[in-house]
């Protein structure tokens, strides 16, 4: 009985198998294809919609009745600012004060943020590399550069502290000690404001960081803190990113308080920006007493200390 079924039903079984499997795989591929096409179509539509709104900044400040016509401001900033969580309170406050704007944040390295400004893909920049910022404005890419706030960098590392830098108040000396001990140090290596700060400190320490102990990740602050924690290595971080990510990290603050570790932020409206009015309004607001108060408050509730010190004007 069983034999007979095997014998005679074989080709029919193969047919069924064919019908069963091929269409399934084909179906998945087709579905994936359709989804992709659909996604592209939708993105295209949304993209068009956005360009339509951003190209009408002139009308954006005029309110017609109860309806407020919104326009987008593209704010290019840095990953460390994003990771600090400041935007989560700063932008809602700004949008409450200026309901005609929606701020879209692009968090990049300082290098990319400046490039976005140069290409006019961003309307306003909030970055922390004063020398590059001044050059950016001097080259005519930005209308002006206003100081906004500062925070500080810290050198963090494992509790073991193999290079013995805990408690040092001279950041350059601490880095020197790390290089002498050839303890693992993870660098941002991404041309960001933090990376530039780090390179400045190595220079001050008279050390050319090179060798297997000096790893370069080319990633954002959060990623580099995670890598350092995993490898129990040293790194330079801004305090805000560190405090925000503290819970998942196995790292301690070892060096802090050196003047050389202060980190100045500046805001730059981009010349001939798509939303020039929005960029100017944002820069004016963030340096106004109202904006500065939001900055001064940030972090007090969550960390018991402010993460940024406002110093505009």
């Amino acid at each position, binding site marked *: 009985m069983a034999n007979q079924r095997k014998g005679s039903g074989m080709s029919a079984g193969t047919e069924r*198998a064919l019908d069963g499997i*091929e269409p399934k*795989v084909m179906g998945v591929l087709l579905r994936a294809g359709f989804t992709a096409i659909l996604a592209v179509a939708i993105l295209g539509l949304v993209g068009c919609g956005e360009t339509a709104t951003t190209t009408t900044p002139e009308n954006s400040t005029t309110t017609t009745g109860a309806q407020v016509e919104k326009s987008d401001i593209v704010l290019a900033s840095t990953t460390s600012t994003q990771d600090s969580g400041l935007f989560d309170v700063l932008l809602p406050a700004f949008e409450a004060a200026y309901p005609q704007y929606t701020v879209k944040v692009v968090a*990049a*390295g300082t290098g*990319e943020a400046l490039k976005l400004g140069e290409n006019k893909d961003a309307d306003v920049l909030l970055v922390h590399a004063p020398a590059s910022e001044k050059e950016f404005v001097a080259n005519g890419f930005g209308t002006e550069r206003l100081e906004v706030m500062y925070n500080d960098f810290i050198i963090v590392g494992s509790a073991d502290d193999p290079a013995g830098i805990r408690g040092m108040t001279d950041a350059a000396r601490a880095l020197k000690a790390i290089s002498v001990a050839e303890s693992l140090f993870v660098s941002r290596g991404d041309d960001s404001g933090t990376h530039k700060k780090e390179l400045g400190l190595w220079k001050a320490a008279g050390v050319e960081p090179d060798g297997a102990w000096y790893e370069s*990740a080319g990633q954002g602050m959060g990623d580099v803190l995670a890598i350092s924690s995993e490898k129990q290595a040293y790194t330079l971080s801004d305090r805000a990113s560190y405090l925000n990510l503290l819970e998942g990290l196995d790292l301690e603050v070892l060096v802090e308080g050196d003047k050389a570790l202060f980190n100045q932020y500046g805001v730059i409206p981009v010349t001939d920006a798509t939303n020039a009015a929005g960029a100017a309004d944002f820069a004016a607001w963030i340096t106004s007493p109202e904006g500065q108060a939001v900055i001064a408050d940030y972090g007090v509730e969550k960390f018991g200390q402010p993460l940024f010190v406002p110093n505009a004007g």
Partner: protein
Amino acid sequence: MEIFTQSIAEAIRLVASFDRYVFQVMGLSLKVSGSAVLIGLVIGLPLGMWLGLSRFRGRGILVALVNTGLGLPPVVVGLFVMMMISRKGPLGFLSLLYTPSAMVIAQVILATPYITAITMSAVGSIPREVRLQAVGLGASRFQALMVVVKEARLSIMTAVIAGFGAVISEVGAVMMVGGNISAGGENKTRVLTTAIVQEARMGHFETAMAFGLILLAMAFAAVFLLSRLQEGPRGGWVKS
């Protein structure tokens, strides 16, 4: 348009100057993705043949799982592998995070479903008579399976190409478990895709695009080579 001509020039310059850094990054890309596909083949080929040739209760669920695997988001796989091998994870004692091995593990997870799914559909479409005939002619069970593999070799090659294409171009998983690290001029875990992300973040759009072109050229060369193996009666190792 200028950026494209500049990028092409930059790509040619980088390759033609035998830039050590670029070749190290290219080499690691090939090594990691190549190993992942080979391991994926070792897992996916038998698995696909089993799923394609046998009928049993619960097979439908397994087939659906494999097909779902075709849509695994690399970044989720990266996150999963990272949590497993992190110092605080269950496999933390192996110290694998931020090593090429971790990148291979993540990419094996991504490549295997491609190889399994395509193998499954390929062997399933081979008439069952082929196998029975082989057995009838005195082949052992294993030899009969080899006959099926031989019949399905073109599709299996397609499976390898699809798997390789999927992993050489992904960035989410390798960024997360590799860390894009170089140290003291030596590349540790930086591959082409993560280098592209880094260069773009730094505002070096031409270099990023140049790396993209190198990646495309490399993927094309690899796929072209595999296709030649697949097609050629004389051009390939895969003889009928």
